[in-house]
C-alpha cells in the first residue's frame, strides 16, 4: 500500500477531472443549484459511465470490485468541482449500509442497481434535535414490519428509490414508491446538496439482517472518509481560485498576493490541506487493508477536513474582498457547502467524541 495515488487512481482522477471541466464547470453547478433538480441527469450519466457508483461494490453484486480508496479519489475530484450527484448518498452511505449487513436478498436486489446508477439509495439516520449519529433512534418505530416516524437531514433522500432507515430495532429497507412515505426536499443553506425530511406513516419496511450496531459503526466510518475526501478536493479549488485572483488583483501597486497578509493565509490553507489530504489517504489505506485503526483514521480525517474546509472557504471570501461576497462569485457556493458539511452526517463535537472513544481515551 502507498499513500499516494496508484496508476489506476491517477487515471481515474484525470478522467473525473476532465468530466468536471467539460460537463460540470462551476457555471453548470450554479445553474443546477438554482433549478428544481437536485443534480443534472446528464452529468450523472457521465459519472456512471466512468463506473463510479459501482467502484467499491464487489463483483458478485454487479460492482467493479475496487477499493473504497478508489471511490474516494472520484469523490475528491467531484468535490473539487462541487458537482451535484447522489454518489455519496447512494454508493457510500446506502450501499455501505447494505454491505455492512448480512442481508443477501437485499444486497443482491439493490446493490447491482446502485452499482449501475439505475437506482439511488439514501441513508436515514438523524432525528430532530439530535446531531449525533451514535444515538439509539427513538423517532422511528416498527410495528409488524410497518414504520412510523420522522427522519431529518437525509442526504439525497428526495431522489432516492430506496431508503435504509435506522429504526428503534434495527435498519430497515424502505422503498420510497409506496403510500406512507412522504419525502420533502428541504430548502437548504448548501445549494449543491439535496437534503430531505422523511416522514413514515405505516410504511412497509424490511428489517435488514445483521448487527445494526456494527452497520452503524461502519457507515459512520465510510461517511467520514467520503465526506473528508470531497472536502479535500473542495479545499484545493478554494486555494486555486483565490491564488489566481491574488495574482491578478492589484492594490497599492502590487498584486495582492505579494503581501504577506494574503500569502500567509493561503500558505496556511495549503498546509492544512496537506494534512487533510494525508489523513484521508491514511483512512483510505486503513479501509483497504482492513486495519483495526479504520474508525480512528476515518474520524481523524473528518475532524481535520471539515474545519479546514470551512476556513479555506471563509478565506476565499475574505481574500476576494467585496467581490467574494457577491452572489455572482462562486465563493459562497463553497462556503455554504463547507458550513453544511461540518454539521451533516454527525456534527463536529460528535466526531471529536467518536475519535476519543475509538482511541480509548
Amino acid at each position, binding site marked *: 500500500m502507498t*499513500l499516494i495515488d496508484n496508476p489506476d487512481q491517477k487515471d481515474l482522477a484525470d478522467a473525473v477531472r476532465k468530466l468536471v471541466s467539460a460537463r460540470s464547470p462551476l457555471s453548470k453547478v450554479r445553474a443546477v443549484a438554482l433549478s428544481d433538480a437536485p443534480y443534472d441527469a446528464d452529468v450523472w450519466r457521465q459519472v456512471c459511465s466512468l463506473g463510479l457508483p459501482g467502484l467499491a461494490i464487489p463483483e458478485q453484486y454487479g460492482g467493479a470490485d475496487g477499493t473504497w480508496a478508489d471511490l474516494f479519489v472520484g469523490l475528491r475530484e467531484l468535490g473539487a468541482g462541487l458537482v451535484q450527484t447522489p454518489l455519496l448518498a447512494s454508493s457510500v452511505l446506502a450501499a455501505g449500509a447494505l454491505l455492512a449487513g448480512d442481508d443477501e436478498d437485499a444486497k443482491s436486489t439493490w446493490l447491482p442497481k446502485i452499482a449501475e446508477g439505475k437506482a439511488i439509495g439514501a441513508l436515514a439516520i438523524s432525528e430532530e434535535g439530535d446531531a449525533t449519529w451514535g444515538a439509539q433512534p427513538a423517532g422511528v418505530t416498527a410495528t409488524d414490519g410497518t414504520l412510523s416516524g420522522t427522519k431529518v437531514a437525509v442526504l439525497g433522500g428526495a431522489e432516492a428509490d430506496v431508503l435504509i432507515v435506522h429504526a428503534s430495532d434495527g435498519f430497515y429497507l424502505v422503498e420510497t414508491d409506496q403510500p406512507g412515505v412522504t419525502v420533502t426536499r428541504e430548502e437548504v443553506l448548501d445549494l449543491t446538496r439535496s437534503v430531505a425530511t422523511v416522514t413514515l406513516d405505516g410504511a412497509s419496511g424490511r428489517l435488514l439482517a445483521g448487527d445494526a450496531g456494527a452497520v452503524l459503526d461502519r457507515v459512520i466510518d465510510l461517511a467520514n472518509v467520503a465526506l473528508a475526501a470531497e472536502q479535500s478536493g473542495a479545499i484545493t479549488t478554494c486555494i486555486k481560485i483565490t*491564488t489566481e485572483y491574488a495574482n491578478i488583483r492589484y492594490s497599492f501597486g502590487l498584486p495582492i498576493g505579494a503581501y504577506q497578509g494574503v500569502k500567509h493565509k*493561503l*500558505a496556511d490553507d495549503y498546509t492544512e490541506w496537506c494534512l487533510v489530504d*494525508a489523513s484521508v489517504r491514511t483512512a483510505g489505506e486503513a479501509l483497504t487493508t482492513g486495519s483495526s485503526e479504520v474508525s480512528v483514521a476515518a474520524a481523524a480525517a473528518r*475532524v*481535520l477536513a471539515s474545519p479546514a474546509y470551512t476556513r479555506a472557504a471563509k478565506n476565499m471570501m475574505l481574500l476576494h474582498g467585496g467581490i467574494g461576497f457577491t452572489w455572482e462569485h462562486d465563493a459562497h457556493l463553497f462556503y455554504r457547502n463547507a458550513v453544511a458539511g461540518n454539521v451533516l452526517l454527525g456534527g463536529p463535537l460528535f466526531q*471529536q467524541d467518536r475519535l476519543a472513544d475509538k482511541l480509548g481515551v
Partner: protein
Amino acid sequence: MPADEFRAKALAWLQEHATPFTAEAADRFAPTLDESKAFQKGLAEAGLAGITWPTEYGGQGLGEDELIAFNEVSADFLMPTGPFVIGLGMPAPTILELGTEEQKKRHIPKMLTGEEIWCQLFSEPNGGSDVASLQTTATRTETGSWLINGQKVWTSGAQFSDFGAILARTDPTVPRHAGITMFIVDMHHPGVTVRPLVVATGDAPFNEVYFDDVEVPADAVIGEVNAGWAAAVVMLRNERVTIGARGRARNNPLGFDTLREIASDVGTSDDPGVRRKLAMVYARETAAAAFGRVLHEGALSGEPIGARGSVGKLAGAEFGLWASDAAEEIVGQDIALLSGKSAKVAKMILAGPGSATAGGSNEIQRNIIAERVLGLPKDPGAADRKTPFNQLKLSK
C-alpha cells in the same frame, strides 16, 4: 523481498544494540558522546547507515524501500544518534550533491561511522531567517586560501563538532545572494571559539561561534565560489525535511501518547473538553506524520519534495504551538510546575517558539510555500535582491 530481509536484519541488530522504546526509558535516556559515537560506528559496520547513499562513499546503495523499512523498525528504539542528525541530514546530502569527488571520499564515510561530527553555520546574530543578509566574510589570501571572520549563532552541536559547513560573504559588491560562498571549516582551528547559548528553557542546546582569521584552503569550497546561495538552498531544503518530516515521535512530550497518560494521571481525562482536545492532538499529530509519508512516497515515484518540505516544517512547528495550548487545557494547573510527570510537557511548551524559529521562521516558511508551491508573487521585501550588498541597510 529485499526490503523485508533488510527490515529483519535491521530489527535483529537494533534488538541487540539499542534500547527498546518505553516512556520510562525515554525519560532516563541520556547517552554520552562516546556512547553515541560507538553506536553510530556499529550502525555503519552493520550496514545500516547511509542506506540510500552510494557505496563508494560508505553508503549502502539501497533504495527508499529499505530506508522506509529502517525508519519504521527503528521508531521502536531509542537510538543515541543525536550528535549526527545535523551532519547526516544537511551537510552530507549537500556535499553528495555539490561537493567534489575528493570532498565526498574524504568526509562522507567518516560522517557515516561517526568519526566526524558536523555542524551547520548559517545563522547570524543580525540575520535571523534572512540568511542571505549574512555578514561573516571570507577573503582570499595570496596563496588562494581564505580567511574567515565573523560570528554565527544558533549552531547546534558546535561544541563537539569536528567540521562545519559555513556560509561567508566573498563579494560584497554584488547583490546579496550573489556574493556568498559555502566552505568546509575545521572546527578545531585555533581561530574558532564556541560559546554555549542559554535559551528560554534554561538549557544550552545551541552555541555562538566566533571566527577570527580562520584559514581554510581553496579546496574547502562546496560548489562554486560566489555560488554559495545555491548550495545553501540545497542544504535548507534538506534541513526542512530533516526538521519537519519526522514520523510521529512516541516520546514527544506534546504528543498524544504522553498527554493522554498525563491526563489520566492528573484526573482530567473524563472531562469532555479534554477528551476532544486529546482527539484533536491525535488527529493533527498523525496527519503531520502521514504527510511526511506522502512526501516520501511521492519522491520515490519521481515527484521531488521541493518546497513542500516547508509545509512539513511549518506543520510541525504549528503543531508544537497549537499542542502547547491544548496541553494547558489537558494537563491543567500542573502545567505551571516544573516537577512531576508533566514537567517535560511544561518544558516543551517553553521550547515551542524556538522550534518555530529554527530552520527559518514560520513566516519565512509561509512565504516559501506561497511563492514556490502556490506561485504567488515575490514579497515586496525582496526588492533589495538587485542592490549590491555593501549598499544595503542591514541590522547591526
